[in-house]
């Protein structure tokens, strides 16, 4: 279960090494790459965090009642 946490390393890798994205091209809707690339990480990180949240949530008696238990 704990290895799901490794997914949370992705935004750090993707954002803390600026040479990866410090360029103008390719543009998207008039946005230089530098800007849309970083903006794209916002929903991506939110989705990753939500995914990890679901995967690491412990089974809880009240919520799990009548449903399948999560592992």
């Amino acid at each position, binding site marked *: 279960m704990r290895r799901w946490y490794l997914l*949370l390393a992705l935004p750090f890798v993707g954002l803390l090494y600026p040479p990866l994205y410090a360029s103008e091209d390719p543009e998207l809707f*008039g946005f230089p790459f530098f800007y849309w690339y*970083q903006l794209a990480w*916002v929903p991506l990180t*939110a989705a990753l*965090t939500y995914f990890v*949240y679901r995967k690491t949530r412990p089974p809880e008696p009240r919520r799990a009642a009548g449903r399948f238990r999560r592992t």
Partner: protein
Amino acid sequence: MNFEVDGVAIAVFCALFLLVTVLGFVAARWKKGDLDLLDEWGLGGRRFGTVITWFLLGGDLFTAYTFIAVPALVWAVGAGGFFALPYTIIVFPLVFLFMPRLWSVASKHRYVTAGDYVKGRFGSRSLATAIVFTGLLATMPYIALQLVGIEVVLGGLGIEGEWPLIIAFAILAAYTYTSGLRAPAMIALVKDTLIYATVLVAIIYIPTQVGGWDNIFSSANETLPERDEPGALIPSGPDAHVAYATLALGSAMALFLYPHALTAVLSSRSQDVVRRNMSLLPAWTLLLGLMALLGYMAIAAGVNVTDPSTAVPALFVDMFPSWFLGVAFAAIAIGALVPAAVMSIAAANLFTRNIWKEFVHRDCSDREEAQVAKIVSLVVKIGALAFVVLLPTQFAIDLQLLGGVWMLQTLPAVMIALYTRWFHRWGLLAGWALGMVAGTWIAASQSFEPVWETPVLEVTAYTALVALLLNLVVATVVTLLLGDRGRADELDETRPADYDELEETREPAPTVSAGVS
């Protein structure tokens, strides 16, 4: 720059301001609790669920000052100011990892502040006091800057002078006193809605007026290199890249050490609420990113101001009809009230729990504890007001920059301590002291430039991270030298199980015993 007085905008602005004032006082009756107890007044009874926590944290972390300062920086220097985006992206996964542990141990031992936790973990009053001192020191100028945010907006409405600011703050002080954390939690609902609406309208409407996104970025690309201190649309070269990345990382690590962030997290109902929120709060990050681009829109619109912080207000005055200008400015001004209230409550909690109860009146009753906190929240606000009225604004801005450097020096004793107690308490204290002095000295010696050309490492990095590195080296060396690990177990009142327990709902808050243990 002088703005003209706009009657319609002022009327809309005042109406919205009045609405939140009423809400602030009504909040006292919401989720009813005994407001003469610190747990109720200062943490809202630790009962806030996902939605309230989302609004409260969003309103608390993304302050009015942020919404003024980030686009101002982007307007002035370009890409360098955009580090706020990666900063507020990575902060949430980071917090997702460590904050539930802190929430858990704090709820188990009824801790209200980071100082409470450090004292419980290390049994050291000196270390706890150092942490508390840092929090108070960093929070004061931050509150003052919220006032600067209101001042900028009032200036945009054509209102000059200090008395409107004083009135706004007196009202804020009154309902914070009576309603505690419930007031900013309730006002945050209005504030967040207004600010979201404003930014969405701005980023959809304004580009159509200034020739589209293509034109916005290309005019920024032409204008930025011609500034007195040349900016750039894309950061280039290793120095700019390291500065960008370290500013993002260091700021993210410091954010949740601030007392106001901790207060908002501890007021939530469960670990689950905290964790779920970390995937929802990026909605605010997106807003901040779009808001940052308003700096470029101001360039494309040909806004020409001497003070960058008036760039966005000037853009709004140019673009929006009067009534919407009132809404937009009210959004920012109300946006200043939420963090200012939470920050003053957090400072009051710190002072009462870790200074008053620790050094002044040990047998202080629960009622006295809450009463002292309420009075301190007033004193803190008066202090912040005096700060802005009497001293140059630049002083508050410089101190706020230092605030990040200072807060990061508490990371080993607070965040790292959640995972290991390997460090000796004297090692942590020595590391903290050196980090504080070195960080302050570096920042002051280069007129508060946030990054430093670090010798030995030969990189241009965020001062706070350099100071943290020194801090950790000293803490490690002193720990190794002292080597008496045995006593650490005796002094630690927390147990490993206190950190991991995931619970869906907590038991009804014990009323009288709160804070006694």
